[in-house]
């Protein structure tokens, strides 16, 4: 198990044991800004050498993946979970959107094993953030005319939210500066990355542990969905990755992105766009179940699945 995951387990264990340890909110904010920028910059430097003819069609495929996942999740939540359309739409949106920290853990997983991946992958993180949120809202609101969605305000909330601005901004900085221009800030953004990720995961462990009460309240279906849906999404992600011709590491990353569930961009947007949905339900699933599952067992599992799929496909 990667060392950063141990920090997560420390936070999780501390909160479950009843410790009142907490990181100052301003530190949490600062760490998340650092991580988003660092991921963006690293991708931007690599993007400089990539022909748009390759990245463009791949980005379109990734957006399609972001649209497809909530379309699959919604009927499952409605029929098996017996959720109302608002809760089903909100959960579907969370699971189609992505978690940047889960992505970061997948990168450290690949790096520590020396597995190569398309270094411009942060572009795909940006592409997958918003589409599912829109799909989830449309699914929940379909047919209801009493409350029109304020799409302008929503677009502002999502597209100018912290994660997209910093990821895109980092990509632009890395792209413009290039490998030599980035050297002066490399010590901060590249060399310290894993340490900062570890500290952030400690905090995420504390937050995830705080969801235990809600998980107990919502019961078995939510736990089953919180583990089953990411595995299903990962399988779909692997199929997309193979069709896109990604590298072995890229297959694992796309599987992880597909499997990850948003707990920052999606909750903020959906609280405004779908006020009828119960936010506790989505957060308990995405942050309390899926996030811990993904970073401990999920990513190694998706790596295995990617290996099996590549073997089947004769790669």
């Amino acid at each position, binding site marked *: 198990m990667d060392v950063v995951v141990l920090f997560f387990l420390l936070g999780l264990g501390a909160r479950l044991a009843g410790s009142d340890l*907490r990181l100052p*909110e301003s530190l949490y904010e600062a760490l998340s800004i650092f991580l988003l920028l660092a991921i963006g910059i690293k991708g931007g430097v690599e993007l400089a050498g990539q022909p748009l003819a390759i990245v463009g069609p791949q980005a379109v495929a990734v957006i399609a993946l972001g649209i497809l996942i909530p379309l699959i999740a919604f009927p499952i939540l409605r029929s098996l979970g017996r959720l109302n359309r608002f809760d089903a739409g909100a959960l579907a949106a969370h699971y189609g959107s992505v978690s940047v920290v889960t992505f970061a853990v997948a990168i450290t997983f690949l790096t520590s094993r020396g597995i190569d991946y398309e270094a411009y992958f942060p572009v795909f993180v940006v592409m997958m953030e918003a589409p599912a949120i829109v799909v989830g809202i449309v699914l929940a609101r379909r047919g209801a005319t009493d409350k029109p969605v304020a799409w302008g305000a929503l677009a502002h909330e999502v597209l100018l939210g912290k994660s997209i601005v910093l990821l895109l901004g980092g990509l632009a900085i890395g792209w413009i500066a290039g490998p030599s221009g980035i050297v002066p800030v490399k010590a901060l953004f590249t060399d310290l990355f894993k340490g900062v990720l570890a500290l952030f995961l400690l905090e995420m462990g504390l*937050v995830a542990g*705080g969801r235990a009460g809600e998980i107990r309240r919502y019961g078995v279906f939510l736990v089953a969905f919180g583990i089953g849906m990411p595995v299903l999404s990962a399988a779909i992600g692997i199929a997309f990755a193979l069709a896109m011709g990604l590298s072995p590491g890229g297959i694992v990353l796309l599987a992880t992105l597909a499997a990850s569930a948003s*707990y920052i961009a999606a909750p903020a947007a959906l*609280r*405004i766009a779908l*006020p009828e949905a119960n936010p506790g339900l989505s957060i308990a699933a995405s942050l309390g179940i899926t996030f811990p599952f993904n970073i401990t067992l999920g990513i190694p599992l998706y790596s295995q699945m990617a290996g099996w799929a590549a073997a089947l496909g004769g790669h």
Partner: protein
Amino acid sequence: MQTHAKKLLVVITEGALEKLLARDVRRLGAHGYTVSDVRGGGERGERAADWEADRSIRMEVIGDEAVIGTIADHILATYCPNYAVSMYVADCGVLRPHKF
């Protein structure tokens, strides 16, 4: 010291509503407002402000009784059905009435 009677409206609610509420209270006639980050718990569970989707705010608005009444009614109708909201109104005395 001479004070002038006004009403103080305090709204404790989810951080997600901050921008909407700020826009609404201005539109409904308030001259200003103050927002602070808070944490607490209620019938919808604990809001511990652990991370950004879990933030809570306290908005204070001072104004004439009519304006405060309009704002309170608007919040009751628009946000109370679906959001965690605690709200109360108190009498207060201000020193510079033209500000409110």
